[in-house]
């Protein structure tokens, strides 16, 4: 019984291969989209991880020579023998590439590309000659060494064993610095006793960048889920249609004695088989897409074939698993309602078109009601959402509400247009479009979500990019950062800088409590750097004038939000009370900040001596450092070339930004496919609807043109409705979810040109999707049209 019934169910697909193709392709595309977004997401994460590590090489405290120079490795051994857990590092220039030498046996866990628990060829790395790690781009620039490709490494950086690095750089027995592991044993002997020439350089917190990238990643993840939602819409449509078309067969099978639960079981099994097949195709497809879009082919090769190019292949099986799980979950989610419908379908009720139409009418009313409720909830949440859960609830209600509202809204627009139509052809066109709407609505919902997601992605990514570059300009404005050891050094630095025409901006801070919130107060000297580079979220017209005159302070957004401070509100700093003149964006910083004039700061915190300085240098920072070292003895070990770091991090982030544009093309392609699929499925039903128009004198070519026009018109309407939704999405993510997750708001910028281009792409997708069905229609044999009028079909 089971075999015969299963064969009958499957025979449907053999007779309707286009339907089978659309179902499998829809599922595969949705899964592919998910996998592709995952891959891109991972690539983005790797990129900004590389950026972050390039930015904060100082994730660990370090020991450096007081003179900034290199020192003998005997100091390393002496410290180890005294119990200090330190690890040597050496870096230098190797043909334009920065070569970093490390000792894999003592390096802190997870540092660099070398991971002891991984599949590293340790013997080869330690003693196998000149082995170095570098990414693909850098590898091509390294001659005479064996390069192991590691995509995770930043550009222009190579890593080798310290012994290898010493040999390649011709610096035998020398090291530049010692990383200090955070988990030191107890009761260490003091540093001065073992290595008096070294000084401890505290870790430079990388929290700024980490906070910013976490936010970016959260947003990308949200959009990954959104793309998946688009895919689910498509699968839902495909499965729904396939089941709808087999209602008659289902009824016959049951009338002939196939038990209902057996039937449901068989259909479920059939779905699962499809899900698995399509899932496998989809995951492969996702990687192909990623391979085409991602610049780093090595990363993709690793994902596809498990080729271990870097020793980190832990992601691959989980990607396969998540791809297949998504395909299965999506199919079950999408097929659940169809199966439920089959299970509840009475055995005897005939599939009356009129009854279906009435049911559709009921459903439309129910749908509009649900949409209104969801949008109302979203509206209320928009004003009140203050946590991650409510933020995502807002996102969900907004999206689902808007998607559900689309068909009724389109129907209203079409009804209005129909009323305005003068010519009989136009009237028929509008009426016929309205009749088609139920069959197309799922695809149009998918298209709207896709366009909205793309508008959201563009807005978010571009806003993030502007904010990020602005923030880097603000925070890394100085060309050099220098720390001093003593008041004498400070005086020497100031004297030398003044002679060299460089501006010295002291960085000094004190920890305080402001309105019950922990905060840092910074004393700041009046300089154009602040006026030019710092961006205020809100400010009075003369904020910096008032601040540097000691009449006011500026505070960061975090403090403003947590302490509930607005412009003009008084801030108590010790005995001082000053009004807030400006609030600036301080992305990624977890705690509050107050910027105060230097004199006022010195008065309030007399004990604090500035030890760190930003320097605005007109010429080459390297020349300045050379001169500084000669004149004052302040070594290179105490200076940081901030401009170089900034340029590097911007270049790395740029790659992430370009990769995310791939999301647009992907989602639109899938939405276009949904339209194609719906039109193909509807094509058979269209013939009886079009035959009367043909019989009354419209040519088949004209009918085809009208079909195409209809698709374009619906796409334009949908895109127009998607624009406000996409902007709302971006706003929710930047202004609600981000604030909830990280405590600060990413400013939202608008990019009308991008949106116009997106609209163009959406239109193109619609034209491509509708083209073939319209062409087929225009070539329908007259005989097929005539059959409609024959009594016996």
């Amino acid at each position, binding site marked *: 019984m089971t075999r015969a019934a299963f064969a009958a169910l499957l025979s449907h697909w053999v007779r309707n291969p286009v339907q089978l193709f659309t179902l499998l392709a829809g599922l595969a595309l949705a899964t592919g989209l998910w996998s592709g977004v995952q891959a891109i997401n991972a690539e983005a994460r790797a990129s900004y991880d590389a950026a972050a590590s390039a930015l904060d090489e100082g994730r660990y405290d370090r020991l450096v020579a007081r003179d900034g120079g290199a020192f003998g490795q005997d100091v390393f051994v002496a410290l180890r023998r005294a119990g200090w857990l330190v690890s040597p590092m050496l870096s230098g220039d190797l043909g334009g590439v920065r070569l970093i030498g490390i*000792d894999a046996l003592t390096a802190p866990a997870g540092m660099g590309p070398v991971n002891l628990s991984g599949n590293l060829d340790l013997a080869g790395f330690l003693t196998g000659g000149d082995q170095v790690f570098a990414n693909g781009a850098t590898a091509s620039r390294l001659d005479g060494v064996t390069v192991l490709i590691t995509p995770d490494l930043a550009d222009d950086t190579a890593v080798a064993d310290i012994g290898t690095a010493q040999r390649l750089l011709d610096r035998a027995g020398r090291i530049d610095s010692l990383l200090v592991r955070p988990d030191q044993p*107890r009761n260490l002997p003091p540093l001065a006793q073992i290595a008096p020439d070294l000084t401890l350089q505290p870790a430079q917190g990388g929290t700024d960048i980490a906070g910013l990238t976490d936010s970016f990643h959260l947003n990308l993840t949200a959009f990954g889920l959104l793309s998946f939602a688009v895919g689910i819409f498509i699968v839902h449509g495909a499965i729904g249609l396939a089941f709808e078309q087999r209602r008659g067969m289902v009824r016959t099978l049951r009338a002939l004695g196939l038990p209902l639960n057996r039937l449901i079981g068989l259909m479920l099994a059939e779905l699962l088989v499809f899900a698995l097949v399509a899932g496998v195709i989809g995951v492969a497809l996702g990687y192909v897409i990623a391979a085409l879009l991602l610049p780093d082919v090595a990363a993709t090769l690793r994902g596809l074939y498990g080729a271990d190019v870097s020793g980190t292949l832990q992601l691959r099986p989980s990607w396969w698993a998540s791809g297949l799980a998504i395909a299965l979950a999506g199919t079950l989610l999408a097929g659940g309602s169809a199966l439920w419908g089959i299970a509840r379908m009475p055995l005897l009720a005939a599939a009356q078109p009129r009854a279906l139409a009435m049911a559709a009418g009921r459903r439309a009313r129910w749908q509009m009601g649900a949409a209104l409720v969801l949008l109302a909830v979203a509206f209320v949440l928009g004003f009140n959402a203050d946590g991650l859960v409510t933020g995502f609830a807002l996102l969900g209600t907004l999206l689902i509400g808007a998607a559900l509202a689309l068909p009724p809204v389109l129907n209203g627009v079409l009804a209005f247009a129909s009323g305005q139509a003068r010519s009989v052809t136009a009237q028929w066109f509008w009426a016929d479009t309205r009749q088609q709407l139920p069959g197309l609505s799922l695809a149009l919902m998918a298209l709207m979500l896709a366009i909205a997601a793309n508008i959201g992605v563009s807005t978010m990514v571009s806003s993030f990019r502007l904010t990020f570059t602005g923030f880097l300009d603000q925070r890394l404005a100085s060309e050099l950062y220098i720390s001093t050891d003593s008041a004498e050094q400070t005086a020497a630095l100031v004297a030398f800088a003044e002679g060299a025409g460089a501006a010295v901006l002291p960085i000094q801070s004190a920890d305080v409590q402001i309105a019950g919130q922990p905060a840092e107060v910074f004393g700041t000297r009046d300089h154009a750097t602040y006026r030019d580079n710092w961006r205020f979220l809100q400010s009075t017209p003369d904020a910096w004038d008032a601040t540097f005159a000691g009449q006011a302070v500026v505070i960061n957004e975090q403090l403003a939000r947590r302490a509930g401070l607005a412009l003009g509100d008084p801030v108590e700093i010790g005995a001082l009370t000053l009004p807030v003149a400006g609030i600036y964006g301080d992305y990624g910083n977890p705690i509050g900040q107050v910027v105060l004039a230097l004199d006022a700061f010195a008065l309030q915190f007399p004990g604090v001596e500035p030890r760190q300085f930003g320097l605005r240098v007109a010429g080459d920072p390297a020349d300045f450092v050379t001169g500084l070292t000669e004149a004052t003895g302040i070594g290179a070990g105490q200076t940081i070339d901030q401009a170089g770091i900034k340029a590097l991090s911007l270049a790395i982030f740029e790659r992430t930004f370009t990769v995310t544009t791939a999301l647009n093309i992907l989602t639109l392609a899938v939405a276009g496919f949904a339209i194609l699929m719906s039109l193909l499925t509807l094509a058979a039903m269209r013939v009886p609807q079009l035959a009367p128009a043909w019989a009354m004198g419209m040519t088949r070519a004209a009918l085809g043109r009208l079909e195409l026009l209809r698709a374009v018109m619906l796409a334009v309407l949908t895109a127009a409705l998607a624009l406000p939704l996409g902007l709302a999405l971006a706003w929710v993510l930047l202004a609600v979810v981000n604030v909830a997750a990280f405590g600060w708001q990413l400013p939202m910028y608008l990019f009308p040109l991008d949106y116009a281009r997106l609209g163009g792409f959406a239109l193109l997708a619609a034209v491509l999707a509708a083209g073939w069905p319209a062409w087929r229609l225009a070539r329908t044999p007259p005989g097929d049209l005539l059959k409609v009028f024959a009594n016996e079909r």
Partner: protein
Amino acid sequence: MNAKALILCLLPLSASAQGFAGLGTEVDGFSTPAPDPVFDFPADHGAHPDYRIEWWYLTANLEDANGTPYGLQWTLFRSALAPYEAEGWDSPQLWMGHAAVTTETDHFVAERLARGGIGQAGVVADPFSAWIDDWALDGDWRTLQMRATGTDFSYDMALTATGPLVFHGEGGYSVKSAAGQASYYYSQPFFDISGTLHLPTGDVQVTGSAWLDREWSSQPLAENQTGWDWFSLSFDDGAKLMGFRLQQTDGMHYTSATWITAEGETTPYADGALQVEPLMTNTAGVPVHWRLTLPARGVDVTVQAVNDDAWMTTSVPYWEGPVTFAGSHQGRGYLEMTGYD
């Protein structure tokens, strides 16, 4: 023997993660142990860089003034990537230190890694000194000083030998499989030990007995051997028993034992004489109750871990901790189990 070639965990990294099974891989260019060894002391207390693996392995059963039991481990492993020593970073000699203190409720572990050639770790024979970072074991083998530190514990101990060195297998040539894999293996099981454990709960003065193993080889296990269960037992009457069981991929085992009288006279027992049977495992599936029988000596005892959770969370994980036993005889000792991760 304790075929505790943990250092070899570094070698399998080069090909594939074989874990302890890597101990059975082929030897190339390294010396291999030969029967009828003639040892040369103090030189042989030092390192043998032309052999692939080597260790200085000390375990101790301790108790404080209240009689609360403690276990202690201090181990230095040497693993050679090539059969020579060189100055500087190019040295192919890798060193790994493991230290642990086991209480009835806690198990503290520390690990250190280093390369030879630069002075961070090594062993010299005369005057004897074995070290890695600030961990050290120095002295003349009549007396030894020992220290190790971790993030949450450290210890300083003094040891005094009260008996002679003992040689396992045939005069120190210890066979590990039917196919003839072997190592050089001797012990000093007669140390009195005392000193201070620095634990998070405070310092503890302890005394007890310690057992120091010395072993070196180049291919101590056959290809089909994947791990071992090693016992060092000290009987209340002063006699001692060293025994091990090697696990094979075919489910069979290879056993070996050395009976040591209170005076230090030894009797080796070949495969099958000692029988070892797991009775009960801990929650992680590692056997912590065992039955040991050596009919030739009338030994039939049940061995029980002092702390079931003495898992070494090191680069290559294993179980190592103090035990007590009862039955035909009573006493305490140490148990090591590998190949269970």
